[in-house]
Each structure stands twice: as C-alpha cells, then as structure tokens.
C-alpha cells in the first residue's frame, strides 16, 4: 500500500502542471473527487476506508437532496457517487438523482447523468422507466449531441416493454444527414433486434439501406444486425452474398479511408465481421461458396504482416474456409496457415492454432497427424489453457485405439485442476468417452504395458472419475453409468464379468479409507452392491452388510447416501445374520428426523422379516423385465381435466406466456435458466430399487397442482439426457464405429504415397536420429494417440522407435501382402478386411488424397469384355439410336434431376425416344421402380453415355448406359466413378452380353456426407480397333432427396429420438394456401415431394420423420406461427437438417 502512496505523491506534480493537451483535464486532482481519491490511497486499513466512504456518502446524500444544489455541482457529486459505487459501497440513494441529472442537466451534466444511470442500473431495474421520457425528449432535440447521448443510452440499456414508445423516433434517425447519428440509430435497432426481434421486423428493408450507406461506419454497424439475422436464417440472405463479397474486396483492397486502418491493416474488425457472415452463408452451399473463394484467397494472401491483428484475420479465414463448401487449394493454404500458428513460438498464436485445429479436425484428421509432435508437447505445456485446448482436440479425435491414452491424459489434468467448472466439463467428457468405448477389447501397447479398453479399464476409469469429481458432478453421469451397468452390453457373460468386477472393486474401496469419496460415488457403490453383490461367490452378504453399516455410521455420509445404503441393505438382508443386522440398523433410523430415511428404515424392517414379500418387491435381475414408465404422465389426465373443469387456466408453453406478457406490456420476466432438464429416465434405471426415485415420484404427485402451470418444469424432464449407451444409443455408437472403419481402412495404393509423406514430414523434426529416451517416449505416446487416425503413420513412427516392431507393421505393397499381414493384427476393426474387394471399396474419406494417387486402378474399374460390337443390332433399336444420337449431344444436364413420379410404366414418356429405348435396357428388377429421367452424360465419337438413378426401398441405384452408335467394335471400355460425398460400389456390369449396342452398369450409392446436391465425377475410356485410346469425363448430379426415405416411427419413439439428436436447424417457410387447411396441405406437398413420413398432426403442429439411406434419421417439427410455418429439424448427422430444409423450401416454392 505504501508504495502506491509514494507513487501517487511523486506523480502529483506532473498532474498539477497543466499541459496543453486539449482533452487532458487533469485539474480534477484538486477537486473534491481528487481529495477523496487521495484520501483513500493514504489509508492503511479497510476499516478506515469504510469509515471515510460512509462519511463521504453521507455528505453526498445531504447535498444531492438539497434544493440549492446546482446541476454543475450535481454532476460533480454524481461522479463521486460513481466512484464510491465502484469501490463496492452502495449508493442507491443517488440513482434517482442520476436520472434527474440526465433529465435536467445540459451538455456534460446530462452526459454524466446518463453515464451514472448506465453504471448504476441494469436492464431490469424499475427506475429505468423514469428515463423513458428523458430519452424521448432528447431524441427529438435539435442538439445533435443530446441525440447522440440518448441513442447511446438506448443501445446500452432500455426497458424492453418501452421500445414501441421510442421506436419510430429511432427509425427516423436512420435517415439523418449526420452519419454518426445514423450509426448510433442502427446500433440501437440492433439492440432492439436482440431483445425483441418481433418489434423491428417491419424495418428489415431499412437495414438494407443502412448496409448500402455511403459511410463505412454506418455500414459496419449494420453488419452486426446482418450477422445475427443470417445466423438465424442463412437462406433468406443468400442474395446478399455478392454484396458482402464486393464490400470485403474493397476493404481488403484498401479502398476505405486510411482512418479505418489499424496498424496498417485496413479495417480489420470489418473484415472479420464480413468473413464471419460469408462463412454462415457459404455453409453447405456450393454455389454461394464459389462466389467467395476468390476474395478469401485474397484475404489470406494480404494478411501476411507479422501482427496479432493479421493473425486474427487469418484465423477467421481458416475457419471460414473449413466451414463453407470445400475447395482444395484453399484448404491447402488454410492448412498451411494452421501449421504456422501451431508451430509459432508465440504462445498466443500456438493457442489459436490449436483452437483452429480442434475446429477443423473432424473434417481433416490428417492435419492432426502432421502436428502430432507439437500436440504432444502442448500436452505438457505449463500454460493450462493450452493443455486444456489440447485435450479438447484429442477428445475430438478419440477412437477405439487411442481412447485409453487420451482418457489417461484427461484424468491427469483433472487431478491437477482446481476449477469446478473445468472439472465438471472434463469429467463429463471422460465419462462420455469411457462409456462410448467400453467393451471393444482392442489391445495395444503403450509404455510396454498392455492396455485394453475393457471392463476393468472402464470400471477403474469411472472410479477415478467419480472420486476426482467431488460433489460437483452433473447427476446424469452416475445415472447413465448405472443405467449402463444394468442394461448391459452384448453378451450376458460379459455383463456378468463387468458387474462382478465392479462389485469387487467397490468392496475393496469400502474396505479402505472412505472418507474422501464423494457422496455420488458412495451412492453408486451402494446401489451396485445391493444389486449385484450376489454375483460374487466368495463375497458373503454379511460382509457387504457390514460395510454398508460402516458407511451408515460415518458422520460425513449425507442422508441421501444413507437412504441409498439402506435400500441396498434391504436387498441384501438374507439369513439370520442379515436379519439381525437389518433390525439393528432399522431401529437406529426408524426415529430419524429425516422422513426419507425413516421410510427406508421402515421398509428395511418389514422386508427383512418377510422374505417372501421381499423377493416379490425386489426381485433379482429385475432389469430383465423392462419397466413401463408412463412418461406422458397420463395418470394425471383425470386430475388435469378436473382442475380445468374447476376453472384452472389451461397450460401454456413458456414462450407463449412470454409473448402474451410482452404484448400486455408487463415488466419483463426473469430469464429462463440455461440448464437443460435433468433426466429422470436415466434415473429410472434404479426405478423401484432406487430410493430417490420413489421420493421423487411421491413429490410429483404431491405438487401436481403446479404441474399444469409450471410447464412441466419437473414433469417433462423424463427423457432429457442423451443416452450414450442405452438401447437406442447403442445403434448410434455402432454407426460411429463403422465410420471409424471407413476412416481407418486404408487403400493399399494410397499408403505408399502417404507413408512417404509422413516420413518426409517426420524427418523435419530433430527427434529422429538417434532417438533420446524422452523423445522416444513422446513418439510412443504419439503413436498411441494418433493410431486410429491413420495406421500408416503409426507404422512409420513405431518402426522408428522400435519397441513394438511387428505389431503394426504393414507393408504397403498392395493386395497380396496386405492380406498376409493381417494375421498379426490384433485390431479387428482396421485389419479384418482381408479381401481385396473390401479394401478397394472402402474409399478414403478425403478425396484430395485419392486424387494424388493413380485413380484409375483404385476405383471401381469394370472392364468390358472385349467386344461390344454393334454389327448385328436389331433394326428398330438401331434406328432409335441414330435418332438419339442427334438429340443426345445437345441437352445440358438439368441441375436437379427431377423425379418422374413413381410410375411403373416406363413408356410414359413417349416423346423421349432415347429414354424409352434405354429404359428397355433397365434390368428387370429395376424396371417398374420409381426413377429419374435418363439424362445424357457425354458423347464421344462412337459412344453415348446416359444415366439415371432408380429408387429402391433400401438404396439408390445409378444406372449408366453406354451406347455404341458405330459399327465398329469398341474395346477396353472402362468406367470409373468417384465422388467426395458418395460411397459408390459396383453392383454389376452389363448383365446381358448379347446386347451388343448397349452396355448397362449398375452402381449402388450411399451418402457419405450430406449436401444439398451430391455429384459424381466419372471417366470413361475405351479403344477402337484402329486408333488411339479415348477418354472422356462426365459428371452426374443427384439431389439429396433421392436418398430420403420415409421413416416410420411412433410419436413416443420420435420423442426419444428427438432429444438424442444433436444437430439441428430452424427456419420459417411459407405455408401453402389453396383452399384446404394450410398445414395439412403443406405437409402433404412435402410428404409427396420428399418422401417423408407424417408421424402425427395435432392442431397447428405436425411432426414428420424421414431417413437418409441407410438409417440416418432426421426428425422434423412443423408449427404454424403467425402465418408462417416454423420448421425445426433435428438429426444425428451434421448438415443433414440444413440440406433438408433447403429441399423443403424448394419443394414449397415449386408447388
């Protein structure tokens, strides 16, 4: 403290000497405020400070209420009051005077008044209502500064309900001749948009005007609104893409006044705002993305100066490039950029690089490999935030192979963490990982130990998680853990082992020091022991009872835990010894103050005496018979209808109440809490066995009066938690394993080049030769961390570091050796695909890799048997073919192969001879199915290629027709298809070889990644007897709707699925109004056009479901709201909702 005083004193002379700076009003140190401040710095104790401030406040209070105080004095007093408040002393008496000062003061006094108001009051303070009149007056003032002040305070804080009062005035200011006023008006409207979007809906076109404003400041301000609006509905603003691009181009090109430069970078904030907008617009939209490639490239190129602000811009560019429709050379540049960040010695940049890497890692896991050594180093970084971000990154790339190591790293971090928030977050993540990969027994080597993510690992990890998390854990973690245990996995034997292991481990824990175990964990232990301790043969119930009794006797045990323990004892009290213990315990607790405990004690007492009743109430393995839970609470229907009949208000959902209230201009409500409802379903695992549920359900029936009003704040929580490993969740997990297979299974042809690449990048690191001990450890760690991502690289690393030479070694010579090498591979997932076909068909996920490799041999090459001569073609086909020859060359590929609606008769289109002709070549099993028009793909000298897609129940079949229009034989026809978004597998070549003029190829297609349209690229090559080989390229485009099939689910299933899906999108669509009920009509159109399943329609709402082949569901919720159709889509597949909503919109537009 004393050195502060000293410094202040030495600084005083300079303060007192007036300098010529125009703004530096340093005189104030002689003022009363100056005295106050100096007085406080001279004090030595908190107590003295308090005394001084209270004295000060008393004097301020006296003066402000005196009628003789002038406004100028008032201003001075107000500044002092602000100072006292900021020291943490309340000066609420001055609030009203601050408002008065804003009202009556002029110039600077007014300004101080407004400042004091904005510092003293928050948005919800009731005194703010008194400010409305002042603001109104100032908005109409002819003094521009007063208008500015009013607009400033309005955009900082304004009562939501009073917005209509000033809205017209603020709107008027959008046309003000002074740009500063326009800018502030735009910002005020932005604020209104945030807190009450409905009220500014009518001025959207004025926002456009602001966007076109000649002043860059006003334009920049309007971008805040646009960013927000585009975030909510990107589709509606696609038309502005070109404008944003051209603005960005001008900014990047330095067209703005030099004044906007920041460290000689032109308007960086504006640039970043624009890039963010572009990334929202270009997401999943190839056409829009194409418009912005050039300017993004330019931004990347221009931002080369070595300054934080350029790095900030680069970071946004990289994020944008990975968000929009991919373009390979931009991706390459972005990846390089990330590399520069990550490798930078500057710690801030390194952090940002890791953050960017975390963002892009899912699209491009290869990038993690390039930087694996850096990532490993960052794991041990002294700065916690870097460590944390690295863990986040690893969390994203977890797979069955590296889960053990990653979880260990996370636990390591947890042990050191002191921050509750981090602990909760990480504990959740570890638990998620542990539950995701528990039973895949994949062994691998790390530090000469063999770890297996198996039962033991799972239980031990969960033990650590429970004991580390303290009592801060989210309750759904123990719940889902118990659910997992009780529902079990695949085999009964495995389940038994798992439970047994849990029991053994818990008994050991209880025998040790239990003092530090969190209550949650003790509850879990109690439940597991009660339920499963009978599985262990050597464990006697008496021993368990004794342990539980010990637990009960401990002082630290909370009463909730005690009730769990009592419940467990109830399940276990067998035999004479058991009964006597039970009696003893129940006597202790039967008179407990806690009613729940008393209840449990009663139960224990009665059930221990009547073993028959006990067996009926608490059967062993109760989980075998699924319990019916009435999640809709229909048992309350009677109660609800009675209450309604008695005049109670019907239930209204919260948002409706909110709207009504805001219409009624009532003061605003409390904001909703952000926490998601906690699951009761996951707690229902314990159902009858769990003591909490019993008490909860009794609680439910107890306050059911509230129930109908509170919007189910307690009741509707039933299925709130995403089940990681439940019966439903299990499927999803399967899918992810399959995905992993696709990622991992390498094409042998690819591995050569990749290995070379990895070797190359590896040799840059100095760790290669000779490998020192810690480095070697790091490399081992790296290989175990990054194993699943690409097996090649681990080959390389493992090969160099030595200790496990054979295990992952894999020669990249091709098919023969790869099948030989599989013998040793313990990893069933990666290496079981022994057949050549399998390896070939698993396309690598990243097309950029494949394009580097010899394409023709890696793809589905089907070679036509020599021939395809067209010598003796039947006459009529021949004739039609020449006809088609003429037509075939001209029509361009229609963008959107519209479906001919399921007409079994292929001859419907008689006016399209080619189609008719070719459709007769459709294989018998495909004719009669719904298919698209046959469209020509390309025409060569002698060959015509056409294609169509046929909708089958479970798949999409692409049919390619190759028509030979010449007389000469065509040899060596090869057809290669490739697509980034699609999985293509060859079904058959031309089935009938005697049709010499037309060859038919069938491919089945599966969507790898949803996009609005999916495109196939292909090459055809052939040879005529005399002449050089010919090749031609073509492409074929399908709408995503071709892959959509109805998904038949019940409303209940829909409900469970809805909550489990994480990707969603929302938008408003237009309703169709043609006579009948608009919702039904609209839904019908959508159902027909997109092949959806209508689950149910109730009143103004409807729910629909569909799936993307194969088995990737998407749920849709429609609601009529203010004449529009509010649509909300959810799916487990990223991008699927966005793509579908696009098609919904199109379908309705076309209608």
């Amino acid at each position: 403290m004393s050195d502060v005083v000293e410094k202040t004193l030495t600084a005083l002379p300079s303060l007192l000497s007036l300098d010529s700076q125009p703004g530096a009003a340093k005189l104030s140190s002689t003022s009363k405020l100056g005295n106050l401040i100096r007085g406080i710095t001279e004090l030595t104790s908190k107590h003295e400070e308090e005394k001084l401030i209270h004295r000060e406040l008393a004097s301020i209070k006296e003066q402000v209420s005196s009628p003789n105080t002038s406004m100028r004095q008032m201003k001075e007093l107000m500044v002092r009051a602000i100072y006292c408040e900021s020291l943490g002393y309340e000066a609420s008496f001055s609030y009203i005077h601050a408002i008065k000062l804003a009202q009556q003061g002029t110039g600077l006094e007014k300004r101080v008044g407004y400042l004091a108001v904005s510092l003293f009051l928050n948005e919800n303070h009731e005194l703010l209502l008194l400010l409305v009149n002042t603001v109104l007056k100032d908005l109409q003032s002819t003094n521009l500064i007063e208008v500015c002040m009013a607009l400033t305070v309005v955009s900082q804080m304004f009562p939501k309900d009073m917005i209509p009062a000033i809205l017209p005035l603020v709107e008027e200011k959008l046309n003000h001749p002074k740009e500063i006023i326009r800018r502030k008006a735009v910002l005020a409207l932005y604020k209104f948009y945030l807190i009450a979007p409905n009220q500014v809906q009518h001025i959207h076109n004025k926002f456009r005007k602001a966007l076109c404003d000649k002043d860059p400041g006003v334009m920049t301000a309007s971008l805040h609104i646009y960013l927000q609006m585009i975030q909510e509905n990107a589709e509606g603003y696609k038309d502005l893409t070109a404008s944003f691009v051209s603005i960005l181009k001008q900014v990047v090109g330095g067209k703005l006044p030099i004044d906007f430069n920041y460290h000689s970078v032109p308007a960086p904030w504006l640039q970043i705002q624009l890039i963010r907008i572009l990334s929202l617009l270009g997401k999943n939209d190839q056409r829009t993305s194409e418009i912005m490639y050039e300017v993004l490239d330019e931004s990347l190129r221009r931002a080369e100066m070595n300054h934080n602000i350029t790095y900030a811009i680069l970071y946004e560019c990289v994020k944008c490039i990975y968000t929009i429709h991919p373009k390979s050379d931009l991706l390459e540049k972005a990846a390089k950029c990330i590399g520069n960040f990550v490798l930078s010695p500057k710690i801030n940049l390194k952090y940002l690089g890791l953050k960017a890497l975390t963002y892009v890692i899912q699209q491009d896991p290869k990038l993690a490999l390039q930087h694996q050594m850096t990532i490993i180093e960052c794991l041990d970084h002294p700065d916690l935030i870097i460590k944390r971000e690295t863990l986040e990154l690893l969390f994203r790339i977890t797979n069955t192979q590296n889960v053990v190591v990653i979880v260990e790293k996370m636990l390591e971090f947890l042990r050191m963490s002191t921050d509750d928030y981090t602990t909760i977050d990480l504990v959740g993540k570890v638990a998620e990982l542990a539950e995701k990969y528990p039973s895949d027994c994949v062994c691998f080597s790390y530090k000469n130990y063999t770890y297996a993510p198996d039962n033991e690992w799972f239980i031990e990890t969960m033990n650590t998680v429970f004991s580390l998390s303290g009592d801060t854990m989210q309750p759904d973690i123990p719940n889902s853990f118990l659910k997992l245990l009780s529902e079990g996995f695949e085999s009964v034997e495995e389940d038994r082992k798992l439970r047994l292991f849990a029991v053994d481990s818990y008994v050991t824990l209880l025998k040790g020091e239990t003092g530090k175990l969190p209550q949650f964990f003790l509850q879990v232990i109690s439940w597991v022991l009660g339920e499963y301790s009978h599985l262990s043969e050597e464990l006697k119930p008496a021993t368990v009872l004794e342990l539980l009794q010990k637990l009960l006797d401990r002082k630290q045990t909370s009463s909730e835990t005690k009730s769990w323990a009592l419940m467990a004892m109830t399940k276990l009290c067998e035999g004479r010894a058991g009964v006597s213990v039970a009696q003893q315990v129940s006597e202790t607790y039967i008179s407990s103050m806690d009613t729940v405990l008393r209840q449990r004690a009663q139960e224990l007492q009665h059930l221990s005496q009547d073993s028959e009743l006990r067996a009926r109430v608490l059967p062993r393995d109760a989980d075998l018979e699924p319990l019916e839970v009435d999640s809709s609470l229909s048992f309350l229907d009677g109660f609800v209808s009675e209450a309604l009949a008695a005049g109670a208000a019907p239930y209204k959902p919260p948002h409706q109440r909110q709207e009504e209230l805001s219409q009624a201009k009532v003061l605003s409500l409390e904001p909703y809490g952000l926490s998601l409802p906690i699951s009761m379903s996951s707690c229902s695992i314990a159902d009858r066995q769990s003591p909490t549920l019993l008490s909860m359900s009794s609680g439910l029936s107890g306050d059911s009066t509230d129930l109908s009003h509170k919007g189910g704040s307690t009741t509707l929580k039933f299925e709130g938690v995403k089940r990681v490993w439940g019966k439903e969740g299990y499927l999803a997990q399967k899918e992810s394993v399959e995905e992993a297979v696709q990622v991992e299974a390498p094409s042998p042809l690819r591995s050569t080049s990749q290995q070379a690449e990895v070797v190359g990048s590896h040799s840059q690191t100095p760790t290669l030769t000779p490998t020192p001990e810690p480095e070697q450890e790091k490399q081992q760690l790296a290989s175990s961390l990054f194993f699943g991502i690409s097996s090649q690289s681990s080959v390389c690393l493992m090969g160099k570091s030595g200790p496990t030479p054979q295990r992952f070694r894999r020669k990249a010579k091709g098919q023969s050796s790869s099948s030989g090498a599989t013998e040793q591979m313990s990893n069933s997932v990666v290496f079981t695909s022994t057949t050549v076909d399998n390896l070939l068909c698993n396309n690598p996920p990243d097309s950029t890799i494949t394009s580097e490799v010899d394409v023709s041999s890696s793809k589905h090459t089907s070679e036509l048997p020599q021939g395809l001569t067209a010598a003796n073609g039947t006459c009529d086909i021949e004739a039609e073919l020449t006809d088609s020859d003429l037509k075939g060359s001209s029509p361009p590929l229609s963008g959107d192969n519209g479906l001919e609606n399921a007409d079994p008769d292929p001859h419907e289109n008689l006016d399209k001879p080619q189609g008719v002709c070719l459709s007769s070549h459709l294989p018998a099993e495909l004719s009669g199915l719904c298919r698209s028009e046959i469209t020509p793909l390309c025409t060569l000298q002698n060959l015509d290629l056409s294609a169509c897609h046929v909708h089958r129940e479970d798949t999409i079949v692409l049919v390619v027709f190759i028509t030979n229009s010449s007389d000469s034989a065509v040899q060596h026809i090869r057809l290669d298809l490739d697509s980034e978004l699609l999985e293509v597998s060859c079904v058959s070549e031309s089935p009938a070889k005697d049709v010499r003029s037309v060859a038919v190829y069938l491919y089945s297609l599966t969507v790898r990644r949803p996009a609005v349209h999916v495109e196939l690229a292909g090459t055809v090559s052939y040879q005529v007897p005399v002449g050089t080989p010919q090749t031609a390229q073509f492409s074929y485009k399908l709408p995503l709707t071709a892959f959509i099939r109805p998904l038949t689910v019940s409303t209940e299933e829909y409900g469970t699925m809805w909550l489990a899906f994480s990707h969603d999108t929302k938008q408003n669509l237009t309703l169709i109004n043609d006579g009948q009920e608009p919702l039904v009509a609209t839904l019908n159109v959508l159902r027909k056009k997109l092949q959806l399943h209508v689950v149910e329609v109730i009143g103004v709402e409807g729910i629909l479901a569909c799936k993307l082949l194969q088995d990737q569901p998407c749920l849709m919720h429609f609601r009529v709201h203010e004449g529009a159709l509010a649509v909300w889509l959810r799916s487990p597949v990223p991008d699927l909702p966005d793509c579908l909503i696009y098609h919904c919109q199109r379908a309705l537009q076309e209608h």
Partner: protein
Amino acid sequence: MQKKSKTLLLLIHQLLCIYQFNYHLRKMRFLLLFSRQGKLRLQKWFTPISEREKKKIIRDMTNMVLARQPRSSNFLDWKDLKIIYKRYASLYFCLAIESQENELLALEVIHRYVELLDKYFGNVCELDIIFNFEKAYFILDEFLMGGEIQETSKQIVNRCIESSDMLQEDDNSEWYEVELFG
C-alpha cells in the same frame, strides 16, 4: 395418444425457448481495469449481472490474472468464458468473451482502447484513469457498445469525446457541432 404427443410437443417448445435464449448472448461480456495491487479502476458490464455476482467476478478475475506466471499466454479459461488480459504498465485490462470468439481480436480490442485513451490523455498513465474515470467511460462508450465494436476509427471516437468536452466550457452548443460532425 393425442395427449401424449401434446406433452411431447410442449416439451419441444420448452427446448425451443432455451435454444432461443442462447442466441442472444453478447460477444463481449465485461471489461475490467485493475491495478497490480488488485484495485479496480474501471468496470463495464455488457450483460445484466447482479451486484453480488459482479463482486465475485471481480475477485476471481484479479486473483486469477495477478497469479499468472510470466511468459504464459494472454488467455484464461473461466467458466464457459475466455478471459483475455493484458498488462499496460501498472494496469491490467481484462476482457471476457464467449469461448467461440476470436481471442487475438479481443486482445486487439484492448489495445485499441488503450490507444484511444493514450490519444485523448496524451501518454496515458494509471492516474489519468483514476482521476478522470468518467472520461475513460465516455471513450469506452464511443468505442464499444453493448458488447460489440461500435467505431474503430481513432479520429472519429476522439472527435466525439473532445466535442462533448467543449460542452463544459460553453453551453451554447452551436459551434462545436461543426467540429464534431464535420
């Protein structure tokens, strides 16, 4: 059946509401200035927060930031937010942003604010801010608004402040308006 699905739809609505509320969070949450001794010099809250919560945040921030090791990054995790801090002489500037925001940019927001203060006060020091904190607030209000950048041009911000300073000397506001609005 009808009833059941109704309940379900209600549930969906409820979730919808939560979802909408998440939308409206501000990008910057608060800005604190405090000295090396942990004395608060300036505080700006961009979202409504109760007084008690404010006090707790201020305590947390000063403790965390002052305890940082030298040569670590300028960023910190705090709850679901990122704290960006930078020290200028004896004063720490500490800005809280949402975690998906751009940390480097936030660092430059701080720097730009310091530049603005510097331009106004002329070689700004902690004492300027202590004795003229209301001016520091005025500058901040012209620069940031409701958690967003309002104006990045140095000249424009300064012209605003200086012209309102003139108000003090002369209440007839005609001539400096010419100054302010060009």
